[in-house]
């Protein structure tokens, strides 16, 4: 039997299995994020055909893509809006898993999920600079200034990420390499491990203890998920058409522009405005560490719920503060 036939048989066997009755929309969220990752990779490859990662040509190439390439504006728009929806769904998926306590007996997969969230953040951060417009340049430069103020490790981090202490052509190339050459492989690797654990440990469901059966198979769940995939594709397309991406002029290192970060970085922005920069970075790092060890912190359901609500409230308040500041 060929390897392909073997994989097909295994997949069919998985899909023929009876799914628990409580598996529904919320369990499909994870699959939706997988689709959006695929959408981002596909549109990213198409953009790579015309994008040129040099300080002299990056902005012009994006300009060319959205103005001259046939449907280039749409591909670029899908990539940008798809990324926003991707981040949103990853966050909702994470919150759902946390409050459903679906991480119980699946602690390692939770850690992998949090690592995936960090990779998604890195995608968003590195991808933003590639446009090389004023907003991208000064937004990224603000992060550079924050990192430069971190004692001991700040400059080392800058040397690794920026390739120096200034935001220049070298940094742009490095961000491009991270965005298209490194992060996709890390993301694909983590997703595969994540899915392997889901397959091994099964989908978490509350009805498991009661042993109820609904009769629906996993292929039904996948079909139901396809409906949401189609709808999310429609939403991304609608956003890309109605709100096409606007550029803020070619990056000019001599003309400062104050830039608000995108919504997903607002909590970090608010934190850095509230406390000294080094302390802010330390607190944000502690927050990420807390997220990683959340399954062990919240062994008691009430404690887990309290910690979760506290975390969400803190993030929401910091985002609001960052937005208003």
């Amino acid at each position, binding site marked *: 039997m060929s390897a392909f036939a073997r994989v097909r048989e295994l997949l069919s066997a998985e899909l023929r299995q009876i799914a628990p009755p409580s598996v529904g929309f919320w369990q499909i969220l994870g699959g939706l994020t997988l689709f959006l990752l695929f959408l981002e990779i596909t549109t990213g490859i198409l953009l790579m055909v015309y994008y040129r990662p040099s300080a002299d040509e990056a902005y012009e190439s994006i300009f060319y893509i959205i103005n*001259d390439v046939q449907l280039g504006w749409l591909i670029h728009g899908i990539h940008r809006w798809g990324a926003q929806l991707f981040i949103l769904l990853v966050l909702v998926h994470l919150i759902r898993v946390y409050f459903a306590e679906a991480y119980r007996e699946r602690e390692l997969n939770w850690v992998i999920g949090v690592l995936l969230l960090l990779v998604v953040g890195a995608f968003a951060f590195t991808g933003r600079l590639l446009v090389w417009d004023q907003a991208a340049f000064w937004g990224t430069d603000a992060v550079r200034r924050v990192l430069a103020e971190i004692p001991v490790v700040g400059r080392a981090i800058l040397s690794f990420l920026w390739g120096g202490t200034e935001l220049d052509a070298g940094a742009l190339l490095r961000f491009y390499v991270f965005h298209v050459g490194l992060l996709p492989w890390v993301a694909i690797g983590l997703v595969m491990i994540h899915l392997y654990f889901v397959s091994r440990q099964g989908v978490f469901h509350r009805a498991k203890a009661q042993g109820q059966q609904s009769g629906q198979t996993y292929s039904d769940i996948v079909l139901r998920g396809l409906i949401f995939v189609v709808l999310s594709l429609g939403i991304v397309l609608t956003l890309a058409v109605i709100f096409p991406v606007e550029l*803020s002029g070619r990056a000019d290192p001599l003309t400062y522009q104050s830039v608000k970060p995108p919504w997903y970085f607002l909590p970090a922005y608010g934190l850095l405005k509230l406390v000294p920069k080094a302390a802010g970075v330390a607190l944000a790092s502690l927050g990420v560490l807390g997220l990683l060890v959340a399954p062990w912190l919240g062994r008691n359901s009430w404690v887990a719920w309290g910690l979760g609500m506290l975390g969400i409230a803190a993030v929401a308040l910091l985002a609001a503060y960052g937005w208003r500041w």
Partner: protein
Amino acid sequence: MSVRSLGITILLLPLVGLAALAQEQNFCLICHSEIKVDYLESTHAASTVTCVACHGGDPTTLDSRAAHALKAFFRGTPQRPEIPELCASCHSDPLKMKPYGLRTDQYAEYQTSRHGKLLAQGDTRVAVCTDCHTAHRILPAWEPRSSTHPENTPNTCAQCHQQRDQGVHSAALAQGNSKAPGCATCHGAHGAAPPGVEDASNVCGRCHTTERAHFGAGPHKKSMDEQKISECVSCHGNHTIEPTDRKFFDTVCARCHSVGSKEQLVGQRLKTLLMAADESLREATHLLEQAQQRAVDVSAYRSRLIEARSYFLQALPVQHALDIPPVEELTRRAKSIADDVRSGLHSLQGVMAIRLLGLTLVWIFLLLLVIVIYLVLRERKGERL
């Protein structure tokens, strides 16, 4: 490294060694260390022209007396009147200058210059070679650090001349436009002299060729020549040339032509034509830039706007002939195209309408797909029951 370049390197090695030896034996720099840095940076040091070439003396001894002895032809610091001739002893020699591809007529030009003439009359305050090129840090004019680099000439000339350019030319130079004229472009370098009344238009016309041609065809040329009025300078000035503005027609024309006169009305007509085209172009450009930022395909409008702008740019020099019909024709074309572009860009809702129609069709397809999946799911559920 290829075999050929390796061979060339081996052949050149003895020459490099000789140059190094010549510098090593230049003991002058041991005592005169204050000029060592300047000299070693200079093109003379690179060409192994040592101190002796200008100052005489014996550079191979550390004995101060022997080094500065008359029998060693020690000349000391050359007197100002001697400097041009001293420099010319090499720089006017075609045999010596040939390897460097340098001109040999600078001294001859200098003698015809205002500087050279005054020096010949005994005025030692005028500029000699070292005032512009410096004595020891002599760099080629193309080198940005050179005192004679076009961007640095305003400062070099300002060492003696209080009047320096404060107009569009120096502003363009300061912005890094290396093609903008410096002092030497209009006044000359070695043959520096203020252009005469008759020559001013020729000097300006070296760059502003089209303006000069149209001016020559207009009524101003003859009357200005007869009255010995400087052609370009009388309207635009010389060292304080301001960016051309439509206000020119109100302020400058009024200096000679009374309000309501036939000539003044010609000026006002030109002003109206140019202003109307300019405003249309500006607004169209602004709208185009806005549309481009919003990822709207404006490539067709872009080329039309370039065409409009080229008509307008043609009208600018043509106005110097003070002949209304050609200016009217060019500005009419520019304005007409710019207005077309403006109205086209204003109605970009058309583009959005096409996009929304496409989106609606996609949604219809997607919803049909959802319905199909839903029906399949229902059928499977029915089979289970």
